[in-house]
């Protein structure tokens, strides 16, 4: 059915255009031969095409535009005619003889234009005549286009201030009156369209009306362009008349469009000064009108106006814009109890943006807005509607973006309350937005109070909510979330150690509620913040407080805290991490000369190793960390050091794979030789270690032979050789040239044996080692002398 309709329409349009073109051809011919009568005749025929009822507004417009172009030429002809002596008044009379009213009126408007230009009569008289004559067309589409034509041809001939048409008889008021009248009539026609035709075609009609709306709105635009319409005239005449028409027409489409049009077309300054009137009109509109959008757009415009220049801000204060808008919103919400939550929040969001722009220093206003929003949302529980939650997030993000400082946002007492309304996933999204804002602005959060407030706010990320457990969350998303909390912890800092310690305690309190899944993410950053504080206190000098350590923050206190914190991790699936952190603390305690504390941490690390780390690869890493850390510790007395060293070598020898054992054991050799401390150089025990490593390497060879039939690689021997050279150079008297020589020969034999496996990397290592020995020999001096006896 529709398809036939459009096809027909195309045909009608084509026919219309054809007719129009044909008549205009003849009209031109008549114009060329100065034949006024024929020109009028053909022009009237041409304009008759516009009498059709068969076209939709969209297609009618095409026809209209062609007619419009032709009428321009006709107008020029009329002007020439009057210059040639033809009386404009006679012409004005003559065209009224056209048979049909529509062509008659188009021609009349055209002549009218020339009439006004001739100034033989006051502009206002001609305009008045025309605007009233147009009443003859009551069909909406035809009437709208006709009046639109009138508006077009008249707009540069209005008796505006400073225009050539201004005179004693003609004033701006007349111009305004004319436009207002045209506007009023056009609106009436436009509204009438709504009620034409069967009710089932309502949607189609609304679409068609929509296409025509700019014709009506143009009048407002013309009004705004009139120079003489200053604030007073706008306030006293224009706005009241326009609003009167808007309210009285009682048409939803018209009201929505025109209210918006007013806001867009007239200057923001005017809106500020007439805020009462504008806002007063809203409750009078049809209940189905989307007021919140109109209001939001008004506030947006005013926000932008405020943002454009600081000079306009006092005006806002003077007219008390904030309170007026607040009240208006309140009234609108009251009047529409069924308004969707999303709509309510959008209104407050626009108001908040407005407030942030106009009164950036008035946090109390912003808080007021949030408070009003909370009040309106209360009783609704967690908001489920996606659109609404999106708006709430926008609402909460606005202060963050404006102030670039979460601390300011935190001063808004209603801020957390608004966040409460978000459902759990969205709450977390908002918390992440907050963290991102902090990271982006590199905001330092510097007191424990602020930290407390912040962590309260983002508690959705810190712990499981009471309601539902969180296992629906994707693992990667969870990691990202927790990593962002970890990064946040790095931003919490105060130079003053007392305050920093309070911050650490506050953070610890919160993250401990996070449960086993979150602790591996949140405890490490807290720990390292604490260790940084320890180091800072070290730097400030250790003063032994004779009255006890309890009051001031001291490294000891911090270590106690850390001890307790690490314990939580060991219960919680992350023993490797716990071990690493224990060793870090041990080293820090070492630097503070706190032997018992360091020993305690080592003990914890060892217990973790023995009881909880069973994966071979993890054990190898753990052992290296233990040996590496222990090697650097200088705070231990002989007994303690011995105990720990003994254990470490024991663990090394018990690793699962022989090569790992070998390597760990020779690493232990360094435990007995610390460069900076002469009393920690025990050459014998170093050698014992190396020999033990050799025995293990041998055993590995034999096992390989037994299991696989070949003796495997000599790599381990070469590594041990290198260690011999290391200690040889350091001056360990137990590492003799003979020992080295013996090891070299052993390696050569192994490599040449029948059961040897070739290993290119071992060959290369041996080659580089030999080269090294050569190089040392050639160095001369004491080094050269040392190396001289070694034969390669």
């Amino acid at each position, binding site marked *: 059915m529709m398809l036939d309709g459009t096809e027909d329409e195309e045909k009608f349009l084509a026919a219309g255009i054809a007719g129009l073109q044909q008549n205009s051809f003849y009209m031109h011919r008549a114009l060329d031969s100065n034949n006024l009568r024929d020109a009028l005749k053909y022009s009237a025929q041409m304009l008759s095409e516009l009498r059709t009822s068969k076209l939709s507004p969209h297609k009618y417009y095409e026809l209209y535009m062609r007619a419009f172009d032709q009428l321009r030429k006709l107008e020029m002809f009329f002007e020439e005619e009057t210059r040639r002596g033809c009386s404009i008044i006679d012409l004005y009379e003559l065209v009224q003889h056209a048979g049909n009213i529509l062509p008659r009126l188009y021609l009349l408007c055209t002549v009218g234009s020339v009439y006004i230009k001739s100034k033989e009569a006051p502009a206002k008289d001609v305009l008045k005549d025309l605007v009233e004559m147009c009443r003859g067309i009551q069909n909406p589409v035809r009437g709208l286009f006709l009046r639109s034509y009138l508006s077009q041809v008249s707009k540069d001939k209005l008796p505006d201030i400073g225009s050539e048409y201004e005179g004693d008889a003609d004033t701006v008021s007349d111009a305004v009156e004319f436009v207002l009248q045209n506007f009023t009539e056009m609106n009436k026609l436009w509204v009438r369209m709504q009620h034409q035709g069967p009710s089932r075609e309502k949607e189609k009609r609304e679409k068609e009306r929509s296409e025509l709306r700019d014709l009506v709105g143009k009048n407002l635009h013309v009004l705004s362009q009139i120079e003489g319409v200053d604030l007073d005239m706008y306030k006293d005449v224009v706005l009241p008349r326009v609003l009167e028409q808007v309210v009285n027409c009682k048409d939803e489409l018209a009201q929505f469009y025109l209210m918006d049009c007013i806001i867009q077309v007239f200057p923001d300054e005017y809106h500020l000064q007439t805020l009462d009137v504008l806002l007063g009109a809203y409750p009078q509109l049809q209940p189905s009108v989307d007021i919140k959008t109109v209001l939001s757009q008004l506030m947006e415009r005013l926000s932008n106006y405020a943002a454009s220049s600081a000079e306009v801000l006092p005006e806002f204060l003077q007219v008390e814009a904030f309170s007026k808008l607040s009240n208006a919103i309140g009234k609108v919400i009251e009047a529409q109890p069924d308004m969707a939550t999303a709509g309510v929040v959008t209104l407050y969001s626009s108001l908040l943006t407005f407030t942030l722009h106009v009164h950036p220093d008035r946090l109390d206003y912003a808080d007021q807005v949030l408070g009003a929003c909370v009040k309106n949302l209360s009783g609704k529980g967690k908001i489920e509607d996606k659109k609404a939650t999106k708006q709430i997030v926008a609402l909460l993000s606005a202060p963050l973006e404006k102030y670039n400082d979460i601390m300011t946002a935190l001063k808004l007492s209603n801020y957390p309350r608004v966040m409460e309304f978000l459902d759990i996933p969205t709450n977390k999204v908002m918390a992440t937005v907050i963290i991102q804002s902090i990271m982006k602005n590199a905001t330092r959060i510097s007191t424990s109070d602020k930290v407390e407030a912040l962590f309260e706010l983002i508690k959705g990320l810190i712990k499981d909510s009471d309601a539902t457990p969180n296992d629906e969350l994707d693992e990667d998303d969870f990691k990202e979330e927790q*990593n962002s909390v*970890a990064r946040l912890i*790095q931003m919490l800092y105060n130079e003053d150690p007392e305050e920093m310690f309070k911050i650490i305690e506050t953070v610890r309190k919160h993250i401990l509620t996070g449960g086993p899944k979150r602790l591996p993410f949140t405890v490490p950053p807290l720990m390292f913040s604490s260790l940084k504080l320890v180091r800072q206190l070290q730097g400030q000098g250790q003063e032994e407080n004779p009255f006890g350590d309890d009051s001031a923050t001291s490294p000891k206190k911090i270590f106690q805290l850390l001890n307790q914190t690490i314990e939580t991790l060991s219960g919680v699936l992350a023993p490797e991490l716990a071990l*690493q952190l224990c060793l870090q603390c041990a*080293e820090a305690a070492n630097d503070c000369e706190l032997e018992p504390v360091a020993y305690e941490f080592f003990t914890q690390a060892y217990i973790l190793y023995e009881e909880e780390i069973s994966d071979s690869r993890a054990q190898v890493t753990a052992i290296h*960390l233990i040996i590496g850390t222990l090697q650097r510790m200088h705070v231990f007395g002989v007994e303690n050091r011995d105990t720990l060293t003994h254990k470490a070598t024991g663990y090394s020898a018990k690793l699962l794979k022989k090569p790992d054992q070998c390597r760990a054991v020779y690493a232990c050799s360094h435990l007995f030789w610390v460069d900076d401390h002469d009393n920690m150089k025990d050459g014998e025990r170093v050698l014992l270690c190396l020999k033990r490593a050799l025995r293990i390497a041998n055993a590995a060879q034999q096992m390989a032979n037994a299991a696989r039939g070949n003796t495997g690689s000599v790599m381990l021997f*070469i590594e041990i050789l290198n260690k011999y050279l290391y200690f040889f150079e350091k001056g360990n008297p137990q590492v003799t040239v003979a020992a080295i020589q013996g090891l070299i020969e052993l390696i050569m034999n192994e490599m040449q044996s029948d059961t040897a496996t070739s290993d290119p990397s071992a060959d290369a290592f041996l*080659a580089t080692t030999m080269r090294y020995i050569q190089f040392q020999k050639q160095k001369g001096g004491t080094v050269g002398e040392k190396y001289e006896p070694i034969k390669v």
Partner: protein
Amino acid sequence: MVLVLALGDLHVPHRAPDLPAKFKSMLVPGKIQHIICTGNLCIKEVHDYLKTLCPDLHIARGEYDEETKYPETKTLTIGQFKLGLCHGHQVIPWGDLDSLAMLQRQLDVDILVTGHTHQFTAYKHEGGVVINPGSATGAYSSITYDVNPSFVLMDIDGLRVVVYVYELIDGEVKVDKIDFKKTSSNQSTQ
């Protein structure tokens, strides 16, 4: 001219929130041909970020790395140079040049890049060059006090490598450079 970025020990998010902004603005995708990373990133986001700078990314495992599959050591050849990569917590004593030289001999490389100490160093010795690019974020270290964020850019050109070290000191990026030359592909670096 081949540009190789060497960096590591970022420790994000345990010890640092992110790379310093001044470094980030300098590291632009498409300018670097290889990245070698000493490890301890620690999370996937950092890996992905580095990947955007350059697709040829080599990483050795640090003890805090989230990804357990990075290798303990890695060797690669770039131009005339053999490079070796290792985090360094496996080489005891930590930061000891002679022990690192042993690893260098074992891997048979001209340039050994390790981390762990968070302290920038570049040593030249008979076997070659040992470079530690430090910590790109200036992360806390039990071994080094007052760590400044740093990273290294190597310009490898034939038998010559210029090592540029970038350090962020008091908010300003300072650059230093060191020249190394190989006598020939088969011999050690002078």
